[in-house]
């Protein structure tokens, strides 16, 4: 026989021993970001017309112009160590970053082959997800290798590598040419990683832009002297986000534990957190 007092007691027992992992530092960090979000939203709304005009001017045919975009910054990510944070966001807030993942088990001509990985991380670096496919870097590979990723807001992010240090990568889309953002990845010599955010449909799953829905995109890499070193119109659609954590956490770093569980296939993005009122 139960009464409402038993119901009370069972509600208490149901939660006995439960403890949150929320820390004051984490709350304070999130509150700091939340304070900035309101004024930034107002500022962005006020600047939107000017930004739209600026973007249209930058995308006109003619001399290549630097592609507008956030400034990349090297950082030490708690999951993978040295990484390059592009400043581009996927979904609501996840940042696109690149990091080196040397694999001692994969060797070519007796040498360990380095791999460059794209990944998504939340701004506080508490969550981390690897992107596929892995970009294998062959020394002296002068043909850009390009991967496409939906940005979760209807746009596309093209990113890739070319085996030339300090390369400049031009991207031709619909008769317009822009300069992709480029950078070196910490710990990866003689390789340039590049990325660009744009509108348009994704490439076909095979990477061959043959279907009517695909947009022809030409990537041309130039070396520091301006000479063309390689070009490609092939791009591979990113086929998902790995559900496993990075295989080689930095020395001395604790195992970050399993990454966010996602389904394989089309990249999916975690549900947005509760937005501020």
């Amino acid at each position, binding site marked *: *026989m*139960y*009464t*409402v*007092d*038993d*119901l*009370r007691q*069972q*509600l*208490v*027992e*149901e*939660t*006995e*021993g*439960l*403890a*949150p*992992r*929320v820390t*004051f530092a*984490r*709350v*304070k960090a*999130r*509150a700091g970001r*939340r*304070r900035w979000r309101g004024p930034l939203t107002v500022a962005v709304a006020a600047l939107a017309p000017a930004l739209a005009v600026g973007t249209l001017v930058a995308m006109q045919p003619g001399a290549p112009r630097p592609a507008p975009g956030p400034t990349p910054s090297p950082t030490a990510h708690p999951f993978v160590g040295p990484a390059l944070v592009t400043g581009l966001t996927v979904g609501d807030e996840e940042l696109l970053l690149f990091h080196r993942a040397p694999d001692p088990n994969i060797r070519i001509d007796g040498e360990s082959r380095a791999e460059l990985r794209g990944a998504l991380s939340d701004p506080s670096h508490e969550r981390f997800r690897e992107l596929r496919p892995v970009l294998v870097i062959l020394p002296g590979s002068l043909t850009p290798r390009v991967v496409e990723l939906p940005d979760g807001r209807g746009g596309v992010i093209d990113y890739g590598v070319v085996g030339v240090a300090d390369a400049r990568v031009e991207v031709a889309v619909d008769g317009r040419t822009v300069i992709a953002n480029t950078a070196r990845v910490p710990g990866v010599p003689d390789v340039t990683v590049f990325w660009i955010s744009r509108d348009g449909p994704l490439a076909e799953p095979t990477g061959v832009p043959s279907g009517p829905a695909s947009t022809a995109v030409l990537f041309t890499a130039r070396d520091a002297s301006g000479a063309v070193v390689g070009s490609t119109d092939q791009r591979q659609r990113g086929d998902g986000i790995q559900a496993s954590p990075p295989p080689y956490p930095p020395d001395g770093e604790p195992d970050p534990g399993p990454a966010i*569980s996602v*389904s394989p296939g089309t990249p999916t993005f975690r*549900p947005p*957190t*509760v937005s*501020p*009122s």
Partner: protein
Amino acid sequence: MRRPESSGPDEQFAAFMSASAHRLYRVAYLLTYDAGQAEELTQNALVRTYTAWPRIVDGDGYAYARRILVNLHSDWWRRLLRRERPTDRLPERRAAGPDPADAAVARTSLAEALRQLTRRERTVIVCRYYLDLTEQQTADDLGVALGTVKSAHARALRKLRVDPGLSTVVEKQETA
């Protein structure tokens, strides 16, 4: 919880957190029955409480945080209803403890029965019987009319009463 007067805002809030985070998390768990969601809900409520900390005039941070948590849960639920939310994991349950088997079965039945309630009904049950709020306080926290709380409360008890796993629960309620 009253705020100490002699320390800075951060120290005050840290003390408030250490005293209240567990209670808030347990309320969040009863509302969601999902450890991950409960933690996210608790953290968001605490973030908002921290942001508003200087403005909490009466110093009752716990009541403020609890109200935010309950309302965030309502907003969150509305948002989730509008999107697909696939999952391949069952909701986390507490680890098996030393309790007798009968008690464990009763707890499981209660959890299952509470899951069958609507969001508002479950929230009212948690407010009334876990937080020990009056019907008026529950209405104030949820921002709804007193009559809404009364009707949700009555519906929830009626459902619990006829739930196969808790067929005898609250049977004595009318005579109590």
